[in-house]
């Protein structure tokens, strides 16, 4: 019995090692600060993580195809700006949501067409789009401002006896749907195939161009959803507020073991990495350390985990 349990544990851990890292880090945090592993604190971690998880799913899908989506941060900023603007103008909420989602799809389509039809490198295309979106946001709202509908905030947060249940629910739903999409749907599998080898995919009759277009559209749409939720968090329209999300999403995806070479990586690990980033921020806040340390820790973690996963892959190859 113990042997087979060990075997399954090992198999699970080699696929989802990020969870082991997460548990170890939690353990260390709990020793330093006993109040870390409390229910209310875990709520805080999840609360912090939900918008990041949604944009990380977007980034993860793109990176699986060897791409990059640098527009994520700017698109989130633009969406806080536009929704706050429309809310100032008292537009109905449902229309605002539709418009925002449409903007996401449009930006994604623009990126996708440039990449799949004209063959421009994703990094360059999305860098350009990022600047354009930044410019538009600053043009509309040079300073942070605007009011967000309280109904909208309550709708996103879904307070149940003072505790925001909405973000938690969303975290779980996105984690499950993202995993199922990537691991148990044809389109998800084709993303892996194309990311692994475009040449082989072409030989096998997969429409690579169509798939890449779809990937960027999906990324734009997911980012728009993430941006809407972020708007409810920050409760203001701010042209610069999204930038940290871009870097956090890239960090989470690589921390979760997705390879920049494409086709390798599992979404549950990205979810764990998102939780890890959330935990670090919450923990540092809790022990009242200046927040700048967060960046140093994140940086060390990122490089260390990249080196670790490289080591794991080589160790596996030797078997």
């Amino acid at each position, binding site marked *: 019995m113990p042997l087979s349990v060990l075997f399954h544990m090992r198999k699970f851990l080699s696929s989802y090692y990020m969870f082991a890292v997460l548990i170890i880090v939690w353990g260390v945090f709990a020793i330093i600060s006993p109040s870390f592993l409390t229910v209310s604190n875990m709520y805080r971690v999840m609360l912090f993580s939900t918008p990041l998880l949604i944009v990380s799913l977007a980034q993860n899908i793109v990176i699986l195809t060897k791409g990059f989506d640098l527009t994520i941060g700017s698109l989130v900023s633009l969406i806080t700006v536009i929704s706050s603007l429309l809310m100032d103008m008292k537009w109905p909420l449902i229309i605002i949501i539709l418009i925002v989602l449409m903007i996401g799809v449009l930006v994604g389509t623009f990126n996708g067409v440039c990449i799949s039809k004209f063959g421009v490198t994703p990094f360059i295309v999305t860098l350009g789009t990022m600047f354009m979106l930044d410019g538009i946001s600053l043009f509309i709202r040079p300073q942070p401002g605007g009011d967000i509908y309280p109904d909208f905030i309550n709708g996103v947060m879904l307070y149940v006896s003072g505790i925001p249940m909405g973000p938690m629910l969303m975290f779980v739903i996105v984690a499950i749907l993202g995993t199922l999409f990537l691991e*148990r749907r044809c389109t998800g599998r084709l993303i*892996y195939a194309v990311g692994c080898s475009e040449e082989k995919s072409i030989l*096998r*009759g997969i429409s690579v161009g169509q798939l890449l277009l779809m990937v960027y559209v999906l990324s734009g749409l997911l980012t728009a959803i993430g941006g809407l939720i972020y708007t409810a968090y920050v409760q203001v329209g701010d042209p610069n507020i999204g930038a940290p999300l871009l870097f956090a999403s890239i960090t989470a995806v690589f921390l979760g073991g997705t390879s920049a070479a494409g086709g390798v990586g599992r979404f549950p690990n990205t979810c764990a990495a998102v939780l890890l980033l959330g935990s670090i921020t919450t923990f540092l806040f809790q022990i009242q350390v200046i927040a700048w340390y967060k960046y140093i820790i994140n940086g060390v973690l990122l490089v260390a985990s990249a080196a670790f996963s490289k080591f794991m892959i080589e160790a596996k190859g030797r078997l």
Partner: protein
Amino acid sequence: MVEVYLSTEGIVKTFPGVKALDNVSIELKMGRITALVGENGAGKSTLVKIISGVYQSDKGRIFVRGKEVNYRNSKEALLEHKIACVHQENTLIPEMTVVENFFLEIENRFYKWGLLSYPAMKKELKSFLKDININNIDIDLKAKYLKPNEIKLIEFAKSLYYNPNLLILDEVTAPLAEDEVKLVFNHMEHLKNSGKAVLFISHRLAEILRISDEVIILREGKVIKSLTGKEIERDQIISMMIGVDIKSHEYFPPKATKVSDKKILEIRNLKGNGVDVSFEVFEGEILALAGLGGQGMSQVLRMIYGILPREYGEFYLNGKRVKIRNPRDAIRCGIIYVSENRELEELFPNLSVKENISIPLFDRCNKAGVIIGSKLSKYVKDIIKSFSIKAPSLDVPITQLSGGNKQKVIIGRYICKEPKVLLLANPTEGLDIATKIEVYKILRNLANRGIGVVVLLSELSEVVNLPDRVLIMHSGRIIKELKKNEITEENILRGYFKEL
């Protein structure tokens, strides 16, 4: 009258710099096994990729059962016209398991409550593999851990799964063992007997003679002839493939009349990667390393040059011991290696012809690290002239040159470094006859200038006619040395098969 399943009419396909297919019209009949033969670069794989929908032709039409068709990709050809193809390249996605790879095109048939059901796929695949008698392949393994023969068998099984009306097999048998080849042949015969069309490509002539009803010969992108029945005969096929009588010596430059006895390079106890050899290279000779595929010849060259790690090896250059740890050391000693993998290991595809030639010349064309353009241009022009390299301009990307001109660029650019020993792996692979002849001449000229030319050859006619001395390798050892008059077709073949 036999019904034609697929026919092509006037197919033309051009790649930058090469006309791969020129007005190709063929017919693939039902209940027949048609073989497609031709030398490397004759256009076989290009034709296969057009028929199977991977490439679109520039000109020409394709008919299936007499109706013109236009498919945009191989999936359409497979699912709508039942044209299944096993490509020469490995098409399995390395990071996916065998099961997933097998059903990747049609995974949507395995949805259960909107989610892919891997157990259902596994069950289906297991029973199918059992039906067609392919066993012992772990279907849960990622494709990157499969052996080459397992990859081909899985791809072959996959093509059978679609119950094709036309099955195309491009060099499927190359990595297979004898009994696996038999299995593939059985399935081909079975398809043939149930009235399906099969297109078979193999570089093993014996297999073609054994199984095909019709042989189409391609040369330089054109259909030379289509043979049926009794016309299918070994010598005729070979001479049509090559276009010249292979036995003629006139295509090779005369051998050295007097070989010097001065050793330039002596290699003692070179060990590693399953190889254990000692030999020497004399001034001004062409020395061939020959043997059947995979006997360690290319490892020898790569270990001397320091690309492949070795366990042991002593090198004596003009009698003096030298250390070679990496290609840099080797070049410093005057040893140059030209890889058989031109595109990947020799050329810088994004750089121009001029830049590609210049790269080894920088150290002699600079002043304090700044390149002197005029000096460099002179060198480059000299090389272009003395090797008669044909390029539209010096500034076009190297990828636009033909294979032969690329090879001349590669050899030429090192000659300025005045090497003492030149190591070449299959220098004529993929070149047409005329260019091959030019390469032979170049190698002989270099030898006449006193360079020791060590060349790995795989074509028998080359082994017989080009070198002054032949070392035959078997399982990583040199088992026979042939000199001058001993170099005959018979002696070489005896050596290959270890009949000493």
